[in-house]
């Protein structure tokens, strides 16, 4: 995994919410077509890392490059246009928009996005309920919508922030299947997860965050050997 070839390259990334310093030098490199997961306790900085990449966390320093292009210099609305799809924490469905409008909202960034009929084939419920308000959907449906709307744009890097949070096991399985499909289609995926069993089934590598830094990283194949140290990181 040579850093030079990395698709998403994060180096010594620091970030602040006002006065409080939340990211203390995060470094990671994600290759094209790779799926990685970021694990860690509450407050370790997983979500903040994604928010720093997206420019939602404005006060940040370090390196964030996508395919060699510097993201830190861009105004926030230009960052997704570089080809990043973002599923925020708690899904971020707009309640003043219908399901259809939510689906069509993100800016098209490239040609190779999934066409609408393919999206509807993947998520049939969304088509049936296209005219209801976005937040009238069930939690699972909202999560499907949150993923569906970034597939249409042609983004090649997907940042998924806890896509299984608060969902029933059967829905978690469906989400897992969808992410698996996306992985098979060659998307590069960064998955933030509390649920490491879920993450381990999908990810090629696992990053563990603690105190705003990457504390450990290993390939999923080494998971069994690393189980005890992982429990130390994630245990309470």
């Amino acid at each position, binding site marked *: 995994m040579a850093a030079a070839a990395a698709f998403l390259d994060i180096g010594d990334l620091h970030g602040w919410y006002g006065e409080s310093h939340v990211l203390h030098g995060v470094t990671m490199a994600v290759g094209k077509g790779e799926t990685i997961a970021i694990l860690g306790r509450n407050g370790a900085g997983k979500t903040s890392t994604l928010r720093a990449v*997206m*420019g*939602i966390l404005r006060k940040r320093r370090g390196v964030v490059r996508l395919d060699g292009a510097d993201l830190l210099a861009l*105004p*926030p*609305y*230009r*960052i*997704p*246009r570089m080809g990043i799809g*973002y599923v*925020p924490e708690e899904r*971020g469905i*707009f*309640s*003043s*928009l219908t399901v259809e*409008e939510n689906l*069509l*909202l*993100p*800016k098209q*960034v490239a040609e190779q996005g999934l066409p609408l009929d393919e999206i509807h084939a993947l998520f049939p419920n969304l088509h049936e309920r296209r005219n209801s308000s976005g937040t009238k959907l069930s939690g699972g449906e909202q999560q499907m919508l949150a993923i569906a*709307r*970034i597939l249409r*744009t042609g983004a090649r890097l997907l940042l998924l922030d806890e896509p299984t949070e608060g969902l029933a096991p059967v829905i978690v399985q469906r989400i897992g299947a969808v992410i698996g499909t996306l992985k098979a289609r060659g998307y590069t995926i960064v998955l933030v997860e509390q649920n490491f069993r879920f993450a381990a089934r999908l990810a090629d590598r696992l990053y563990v965050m603690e105190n705003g830094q990457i504390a450990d990283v290993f390939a999923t194949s080494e998971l069994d050997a690393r189980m005890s140290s992982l429990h130390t990181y994630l245990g309470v």
Partner: protein
Amino acid sequence: MVTIFGVPAAALYGQLLVGLINGSFYALLSLGLAVIFGMLNVINVAHGAMYMLGAFAAWFLLHMFGISYWWALGLAPIAVALVGVVIERTTLRRVAHLDHLYGFLLTLGLAMVIEGLFRYWYGSSGQPYAIPSALAGGIKLPFMFLPIYRVWVVVVSLVVCLATWLVIERTHIGAHLRAATENAVLSQAFGLNVPLLVTLTYAGGVALAGLAGVLAAPIYQVSPLMGSNLIIVVFAVVVVGGMGSILGSIVTGYLLGIVEGMTRVYYPEASSIVIFVIMVVVLMLRPAGLFGREKDSAANASPPIGATQATGMDDKWAAIGALGVVAALIAAPALVYPVFLMKLMCFALFAAAFNLLIGFVGLLSFGHAAFFGSGAYIAAYAAKVWHLDPLLCVLAGTATGAVLGLLFGALAIRRSGIYFAMITLALAQMVYFIALQAPFTGGEDGIQDVPRGMLFGVLDLQHPVAMYGFVMAVFVVGMAVLWRVVRSPFGQVLKAIRENEARAISLGYDVQRFKLKAFVISAALAGAAGGTKALVFQLASLTDVTWQMSGDVVLMTLMGGIGTMLGPVVGAAVVVSLENALAGLEFPITVLIGAIFIACVLLFRRGIVGEVQQWFARLSRVSN
């Protein structure tokens, strides 16, 4: 002749039509305000000025270039939109991350500059604008004469309002606007160019006002003040409708226009205040407004106004400062004209009273002229008609301020933030209309030749030294009261409310009671300042109750330093000196005051005293 409830039917229909016309303008303007507020979180006080600009643009086009009304209908709103783009890009953008009261003050300053300049260039009287020939004349119906142009205005405004609503609710760009209004940060994470949307929204909102201006030009005259009179009524409309809903602001606009027209038929004396009365009733029954959804200050994460101040001086420095001020006041008449100093003290007390609310509770009252002015009227009346002792006159003014403060406060504290400012403004405007019409205030003349009287029956205040001493005593006592309030446990709770209202509630404080008490104290002292002022100048007049007076006191406080003890005094000194220095000039002072407003909001939000305190704090940190 057919009559309805004792009124000729023709008159009724005629007023109904006038009401519908006014309603059309209310709807167009409040729609623009609502759209802008949703996206920018700014109450665009300059909206009235934009309406005026639209009318003037049409007038220019016709008289300078011979361009007809029909072209103006399209060109004038575009011109106003371009002005809007400049305003948003150069000024509003810079205060977007601050408490939205700063946006209010900034647009107020812009309105003052724009309207002041036009008044300077074109005078207060209106310029006529002919009705285009195709729309001239009318239709004679069996029950009334129907002027075609008025029908045209109602139809155009309805079509434009509904089209705007459809664009927002049904189109792709509308979806972008709604998304950015709901969550700007997240919208950017999906690639929406929110800064551009914000600019377009502001431009579109003011273009609606510009269109209203073009439509209004043939009906009313094209005059520099046509907007400032209208905007306060529109604020009341917005409070009644609630700003959550686009359709709500349209419906409320037409509805209130019609109600106003009907009032003109059945009870003409009340027609200028009926909308304000409705606002009061709605506030009591449904504080969020008829169509509103309550969200106002809860979502406001920006630091509260005034909270950026240094924590203040210690007791030793405070005592030295107070003694210094008193010594300076005793020595000053030797150097400066005493009447000027007395005026200064009246306004300093007024500003300090106002500062209690904005600086220590975080509430921007934009109606403090009501307390100041009615204090002045009552004190003047008590002195002239009842021949009361001057001290009793000032106390009567104080009591008036307190009672009015209790009434206004009880209504206004039901809302916070920007709504609070609009409600106090609308209530104060009611007082203005009452002062204009009530028999005892002397209308346009005011109460003149007020006797200063004999203090305790022995000390003739006609003597300058005695009067000076009396004013100084009122000033010192008033400031001491404020000082005591701010430093007391009560004052600490006020500051807690300013910093974090929810937390103060969770600590068990009845926040509303604290706010109301502070409001009453502030209003009472404003009344005392007004009463004293009436005795100093031997005059109580409409100037004392205008919204410009409320604006002046905001400026004094902002300029001197919100939330500091000395700031309002310094600010009052600067503003009063400026007004004195410029009184002889032809150039309108409102332009300068407006420009200072803009400069203060953009550059010196701490004010003079705040900046000095900051400088000292930094100095002492360095030396430590």
